[in-house]
């Protein structure tokens, strides 16, 4: 049921727009030249790139059925896409995206960010006339945005990506919740970020993250003093909707009842004149709990109801057969691949890795997940909707012999095993592989296929399936455990930029002792250096090319063995005109959805 949620391939890509905006112009080509979003088949079902954003009917209440509860609704903490359905309907970060695009639009900002020529300053001008919801009510100022970012360093809030994306702001390293030297607010509607390194593009990209959604200091401070902060239970909104609260501002117990429900009502202080969102719905009632098998049916047979998470596989099948108009498929929901230990054990030999890549029947694994409807066979590490995808080979990927046959090629596998020093074509060493997979469905079927493939290469395996929390937290994410094969790891970008797909997962510098996401412990000095260089490339085209090249090198190094590019399926009731967010696995966007 519940698994470590891959933080949404969310947020936003500041790709073309920002790069070009730095030069003063903006471009809004449909889709992204390098991202391949349109190349992926969505089976003829509706998808975020094909749905209409305007013309919806005003009014009505949407009921949302979600099996999983939220991780955190605090805009300064929220990091999983299960939280984003609420956060992005109630909070306005500096930049955000329209549903059918990965290009950001100014949200709280009034225009594109201004980046200095030395790449060390980012200036953003704010819209005027945006107000907080009751009980704060007053106009949002740059101070509020500054506080929102600063509180990320407060240990009571402990924003997970603060250091990654804002660590280069002057004073950020030592910050602990108080004012940060590098954040300047020259006037009520301007905010300037001074960086200690020339990483302006990265920071500018990161302004789509919810950490930048304004938080009123005088109201929130007393909550941020608590250990941990309970601002989430008293939060105010800047978006079209707000969590229902009482007169004192308390959300807990009304707008949010943990494990039971969340209720979004219209923010009376929101003005459509300051926003590009249509906000058709009057109210959104989110009901938590239950079981996906039942929820799926309730949605498909219902009217004004949706499910806003990945449905059960059986339900997706049912929808594809009998409720075609109520199914939406969205590409670019992330990847699944097999991490193998690059550092110790048989897989530290690149030829053994290539042998496994060749031997694996990726089409079978794809079928086990539900086939083309929900996944494409993965051939390299950047995925559709991520800029650089096409440059890295698109759907077909790099042409190397071990990548050519997704259904598996025993001859090629044998060739590489021989190259690795096993003349029989099968492993003859004494080491028993430790394989730890995810016991959820369908991951466990995929893990089984991997296990069988390993055996066919002559390995003996100790094969265990555990809960995803445990798999990541105790085994695969802990280098010391020396797990040989992790067949069920998954990844999705923080926002559509190739760095967020490859850096954390394949950079040797990213290896940490716990919570490690470079599961294979890939540590090739050449690749590490290339990544460091590519981090600071600010020209969009050059950036895409550089990261695509790194993707190629990872393929040539067989750093990990890919198997699937996820597409997410989402379902709606018959009276819902749902609009899904391309940047959020196609999950329904309350700002744009309406009832028929």
């Amino acid at each position, binding site marked *: *049921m*519940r698994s*470590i949620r*891959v*933080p949404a391939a969310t947020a936003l890509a500041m790709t073309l727009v920002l790069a070009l905006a730095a030069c003063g112009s903006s471009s809004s080509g449909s889709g992204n030249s390098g991202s391949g979003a349109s190349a992926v088949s969505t089976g003829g079902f509706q998808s975020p790139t094909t749905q209409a954003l305007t013309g919806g009917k005003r009014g009505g209440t949407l009921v949302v*059925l979600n099996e999983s*509860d*939220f*991780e*955190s609704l605090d805009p300064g*903490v929220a*990091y*999983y896409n299960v939280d984003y359905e609420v956060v992005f309907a109630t909070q306005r970060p500096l930049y955000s995206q329209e549903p059918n695009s990965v290009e950001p639009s100014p949200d709280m900002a009034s225009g594109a960010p201004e980046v200095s020529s030395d790449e060390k300053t980012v200036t953003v001008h704010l819209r005027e006339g945006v107000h907080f919801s009751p009980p704060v009510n007053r106009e949002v100022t740059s101070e509020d945005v500054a506080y929102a970012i600063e509180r990320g360093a407060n*240990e*009571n809030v*402990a*924003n*997970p*990506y*603060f*250091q*990654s994306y804002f660590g280069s702001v002057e004073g950020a390293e030592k910050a602990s919740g108080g004012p940060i030297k590098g954040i300047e607010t020259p006037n009520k509607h301007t905010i300037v970020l001074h960086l200690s390194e020339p990483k302006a593009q990265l920071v500018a990209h990161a302004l789509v993250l919810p950490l930048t959604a304004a938080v009123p200091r005088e109201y929130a401070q007393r909550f941020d003093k*608590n*250990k*941990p902060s*309970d601002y*989430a*239970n008293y939060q105010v909104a800047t978006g079209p909707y707000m969590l229902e609260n009482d007169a004192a501002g308390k959300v*807990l117990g009304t707008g*949010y*009842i*943990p*494990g*039971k429900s969340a209720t979004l009502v219209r923010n009376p202080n929101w003005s459509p004149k300051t926003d590009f969102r249509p906000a058709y719905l009057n109210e959104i009632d989110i*009901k938590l*709990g*239950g*079981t996906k*098998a*039942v*929820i799926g*049916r*309730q949605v498909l*047979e*219902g009217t004004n109801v949706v499910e806003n998470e990945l449905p059960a596989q059986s339900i997706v099948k049912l929808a594809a057969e009998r409720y075609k108009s109520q199914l939406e498929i969205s590409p670019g929901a992330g990847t699944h691949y097999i991490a193998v230990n690059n550092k110790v054990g048989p897989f530290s030999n690149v030829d053994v890795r290539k042998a496994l890549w060749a031997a694996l029947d990726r089409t079978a694994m794809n079928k086990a997940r539900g086939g083309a409807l929900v996944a494409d066979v993965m051939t390299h590490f950047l995925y559709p909707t991520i800029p650089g995808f096409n440059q890295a080979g698109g759907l077909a990927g790099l042409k190397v012999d071990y990548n050519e046959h997704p259904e598996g090629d025993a001859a090629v596998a044998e060739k590489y095993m021989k190259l690795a020093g096993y003349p029989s074509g099968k492993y003859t060493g004494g080491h028993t592989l430790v394989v730890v997979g995810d016991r959820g469905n369908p991951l466990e079927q995929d893990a089984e296929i991997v296990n069988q493939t390993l055996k066919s290469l002559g390995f003996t395996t100790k094969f265990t399936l555990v*809960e995803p*929390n*445990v798999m*990541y*937290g*105790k085994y695969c994410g802990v280098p010391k455990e020396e797990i040989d094969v992790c067949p069920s790891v998954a990844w999705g970008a923080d926002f559509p930029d190739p760095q967020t797909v490859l850096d*954390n997962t394949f950079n040797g510098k*990213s290896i*940490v*002792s*716990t*919570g490690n*996401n470079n599961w294979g412990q890939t540590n090739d000095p050449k690749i590490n250096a290339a990544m460091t260089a590519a981090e600071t490339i600010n020209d969009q085209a050059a950036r895409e090319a550089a990261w695509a090249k790194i993707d190629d090198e990872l393929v040539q190094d067989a750093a990990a063995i890919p198997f699937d590019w996820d597409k997410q399926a989402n379902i709606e009731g018959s009276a819902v005109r749902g609009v899904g967010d391309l940047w959020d696995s196609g999950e329904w966007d309350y700002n744009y959805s309406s009832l028929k």
Partner: protein
Amino acid sequence: MTAYIVRRVLWGIALLVIVCALTFVLFRVFPTANPAQLRAGRSPQPKVIHEIERVLGLNKSLSTQFFDYVKNVFLHFNLGYSYYSDESVRSLISERLPATISLTLGAGVLWIVGGLGVGILSALRRHSLLDRLAMGGALVLVSAPEFWLGLIALFLFAQDIGQWRIFPGAGSYVGITSDPWQWFTSMIMPWFVLASGSAAVFARLMRGSLIETMGEDYIRTARAKGLAERRVVRHGVRSAINPIVTLFGLEIGTLLGGTVLIETVFNIPGVGRLAYDSITTADFSVIQGTVLLAAMFIIVANIVVDIAYAYLDPRVRYS
């Protein structure tokens, strides 16, 4: 008798402390997941994890954490706060408890009446068609997994997704004070599904127990006295029911600690689901709170059952 009760209660409290310690050991000394890490999301820097641990009090020594916790619980009735929602565990539990109590007690009534009724009839008409059907049916119900039965019930009778749209579907539970009729109708299917397994067990038990008691000498005396057969059966049931009552009390006590599967299928916001969710998110305080609650119910049920038994069977009374 009072001394006995007092002794049992004191021992019960001691047991609760032991349960506290055991849960603590299970979930902290052998952790399956670090809540600080979960909360920190992925790719957290160690610094962030440490910060969260410090904020949540997870960095103190285990014994300090334990003593702090025990002190809070037993002296201040403070069960701590959820790591995720920041709501106090006590209010989380008290919010969820009415649903579980409704579910358990309603099902309890059903299965006692149904189970005993069927059991008595079966015992009196041993080997008849009724008996065979009843015991066969009981076997099926006992073997059927609760979860599956619940799904079948929904797919057959739920107003939103069923074949015959009779009862409210999953997620329609409301508290009895907000809408008594909806509360009642939304609980009918869960009651039946939850009661089915137990009713079957009780029917078989009652049948066996009654068959045995009806062969006792005092039944012969009752007949020899010229009592109507219904009274004679009453004599038998009166004796046969004692072990059943004990079992009933214990089962209710166990179920009050949470009926996860039913609560999940029908989406009833009870403590069972709370317990399960807290385990998957490693929300320690909530886990501990729900475990303590469950332990308390079982301990209380045990004491009540012992007292009830002494009341029901004068031969075992403590002087």
